[in-house]
């Protein structure tokens, strides 16, 4: 009988424990998935495949030095143990070549964490049949990604963590004949045919608005409503070093003025790292228990994300951040704007469903640029008038989420990451929509 991923990892960790020689220490991270990827174009299958992958990341520590090696596992216990031995040997040969690391910090807490969610995923035939039935006459394009994800951690000080979850993520767009499109997503752990049909119907209804003649806007300042998916793009930029202890200390964070108390966001803005209840593992990639954090509280910078290395370098307390110090379960507090009042409160302006390809035009000033994409509408008198051609914005976060923020919605949307770079990601964000008095369009 084939060993489960958990048993494979436990066996490797036990073998490693026997191989290390005091005073050596180790950490061993594990990441695996068995994924099915089905791409769609014109509501038909463009490309389909499955990927079975697993890897370990071994860190060896000795005499104040550390080095790390990641290696692929092949599911043959003997070969995987050989690879582990080779990894240990390479790291043993490497450590004496290094200078002592003043920022080396080992977490000696022998924590244990175990989370397994094995809810059955839908059969591929069922998913394909429902997509065929619901979208046959539509121009649907996107990807269905599904399967189990595994994350593990063990170290020589007795810590052990295991995270295992089945999930699916169907991320798609519907295109109108005129090239306009609406974006939709159905993701989770239990497939509900009725819920999926509802998502598809909602997207189809939005598509009808996109058939109206396009309105071309000129550069200038506009009232705007940013839906949660658009807010997710802005938050994604802020997560790019925004809350990182190292980025803040080395002046490469877009939120350095906020955390230096030289700038403020609107008092409506409170943002946290809400690990508990999220889909992310309860432990970081470097093997510490993650904490819920208050990153921004009523417009003021508060907690930063601190990994072990930053803790040692900047004399801070580590708080369970990954090595790259980015949030993995971002949660923004809701406001009071009711969903059904959005268009009325917007009055005349832009309803922006999604933003695209953001980047900084002036990083220290948190000024960013990006474009509208998917279902952006011109609204007059609280009524949708026309889809809008692609427009570029260039504005500071201190304006959008500061002086020009009028309201946040009372309802929030949970957005599960669709990223599959290297492996399927487990991060998420829980966000309201935002009504802003002024958004600057430049092109």
């Amino acid at each position, binding site marked *: 009988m084939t060993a489960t991923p958990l048993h494979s990892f436990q066996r490797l960790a036990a073998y490693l424990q026997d191989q290390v020689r005091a005073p050596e220490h180790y950490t061993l991270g594990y990441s695996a998935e068995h994924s099915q990827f089905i791409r769609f174009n014109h509501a038909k299958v463009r490309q389909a495949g499955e990927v079975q992958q697993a890897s370990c990341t071994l860190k060896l520590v000795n005499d104040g030095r550390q080095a790390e090696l990641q290696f692929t596992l*092949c599911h043959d216990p003997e070969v995987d143990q050989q690879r582990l031995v080779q990894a240990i040997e390479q790291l043993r040969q490497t450590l004496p070549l290094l200078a002592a690391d003043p920022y080396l910090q080992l977490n000696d807490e022998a924590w244990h964490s175990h989370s397994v969610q094995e809810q059955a995923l839908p059969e591929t035939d069922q998913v394909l049949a429902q997509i065929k039935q619901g979208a046959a006459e539509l121009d649907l394009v996107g990807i269905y990604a599904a399967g189990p994800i595994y994350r593990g951690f063990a170290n020589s000080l007795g810590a052990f963590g295991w995270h295992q979850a089945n999930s699916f993520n169907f991320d798609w767009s519907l295109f109108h004949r005129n090239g306009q499109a609406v974006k939709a997503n159905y993701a989770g752990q239990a497939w509900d045919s009725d819920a999926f049909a509802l998502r598809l119907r909602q997207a189809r209804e939005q598509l009808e608005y996109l058939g109206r003649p396009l309105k071309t806007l000129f550069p200038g300042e506009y009232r705007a409503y940013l839906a949660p998916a658009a807010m997710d793009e802005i938050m994604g930029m802020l997560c790019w070093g925004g809350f990182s202890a190292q980025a803040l200390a080395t*002046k490469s964070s877009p939120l350095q003025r906020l955390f230096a108390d030289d700038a403020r966001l609107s008092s409506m803005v409170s943002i946290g790292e809400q690990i508990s209840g999220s889909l992310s593992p309860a432990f970081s990639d470097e093997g510490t228990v993650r904490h819920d954090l208050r990153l921004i509280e009523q417009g003021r910078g508060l907690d930063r994300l601190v990994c072990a290395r930053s803790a040692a370098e900047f004399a801070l307390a580590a708080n369970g951040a990954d090595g790259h110090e980015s949030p993995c379960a971002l949660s923004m507090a809701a406001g009071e704007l009711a969903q059904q009042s959005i268009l009325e409160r917007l009055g005349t302006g832009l309803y922006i469903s999604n933003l695209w390809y953001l*980047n900084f035009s002036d990083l220290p000033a948190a000024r960013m640029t990006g474009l509208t994409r998917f279902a952006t509408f011109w609204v007059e008198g609280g009524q949708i008038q026309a889809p809008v051609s692609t427009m570029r914005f260039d504005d500071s976060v201190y304006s959008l989420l500061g002086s020009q923020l009028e309201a946040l919605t009372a309802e929030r949307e949970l957005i599960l990451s669709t990223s599959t770079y290297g492996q399927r990601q487990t991060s998420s964000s829980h966000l309201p929509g935002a009504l802003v008095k002024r958004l600057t369009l430049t092109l």
Partner: protein
Amino acid sequence: MFEITALLRQRFAALRSDAEFFSLRYVQQSQQYLSVRKNIAEPPFFSRDEGAMLTVRVKGVEAYAATADLSQAGLQQALAHAEALARQIGALALLNLSDQAVASERRDYCSPNLEQPFPSLADCFDLLARESASVPDDSRLVNWQASLGVSNLEQIYLNSAGAELRQAQRFVYPGFSVTAFDGQDSQTRSLGRDNFGQQGGEDVIVRCGLVNAGAKVADQALQLLLAPNTPSGVRDLLLMPDQMMLQIHESIGHPLEMDRILGDERNYAGTSFVNASDFGTLQYGSKLLNVTFDPTLGEELASYSHDDDGTPASKQFLIRDGVLLRPLGGALSQFRSGLDGVANSRACGWNRAPIDRMANLNIEPGEQRLDQLIGGIEHGILMSTNRSWSIDDARNKFQFGCEWGQLIENGELKGVVKNPNYRGISAQFWGNLSAVGDASTFEVLGTPNCGKGEPNQVVRVGHASPACVFSQIDVFGGDA
């Protein structure tokens, strides 16, 4: 090198399948990343990755299965899974590939200087430590980092039509950056990093200019901190090669990818302002614009003999004298569109399927030296080293930012300016190309970080370009 070949051949020959065609693409990658930040060596990171993708064609429908289990049973199981999936999706498949030709060549390809050993770990750390230590003692210099990434790749492609294509390559990514801070503003100046990578060995470190770079990069970071903001307005724009590569990448490379034009990427990477009917007729830029797909420059990141579907690669003009000629479309896209393309079907590793990607996408040199380019500008700005990029999903409206700017007045370089940004529209921008630098301004650059595809993939791409001048471009600075 290629030590696994005999074993793979044997196991591939023993595979059993009812498919009309199947292939195996084996990929082994080992990487090493070293860094010294503020004179402290960071923990070195190594990786070793190995696996294979089995692709089958059943009744014209293709599917794949990727596995790290390279045993006979593991490969057979992956092949069986791929076959089962191809049958499962058959009724809903977009494409019938029954008539698509398959590769049958046998060839080996190696990076230049691959036989020469790379400097030892100790030597690499010594170099990085030396450069880090050369940053002067100045309280405004708040961060600096010297880094060196090396990646070794071996790939073996076998298929049921008899193809055997082996590639062994080494990619090197040196880098250095310094950040200066005055209490309010911060400015970063860098060398290499995401803007420079090449195939080769120690020679790449030399060509990048990492040796003795520390003090110069630090000085430029301080100059930027003291510089005024880039003034807003319309000027002639001189882009140096380390910004040209980004300009080529975003507003020529991506819009010419045939899978975008065919709609595959509309949900993620986007579409294109270019239509299939534009090839052969569209005036993409001024008559000075000559763009090639060129896999023959040995040191460039995406030089190879065959792409990941086994199609032989050769130099082709995509744009000649400003006229759009052919897309970046591999064998499958050529089959689907009926257009001639190039060998650019590429995957980032064994666990992702090949799709249309940029490879080496270059601008051919013109006839003017750098001093002549500058001398021909009355009211302009030089911009160098990309730091910000944003473009719409049809790859038309863009805004790019650089680290370094210098005003040009009456044919002379003037003062340094910070936060140099510019914006434009691809469909018009290349028409404003007014001068192209000669071979003395030509640089071979590249980046390891081009993202695209569902599931997502990051691949390395090469861009070589001379310095170029664009007339009457909207430029502007930052807030600080």
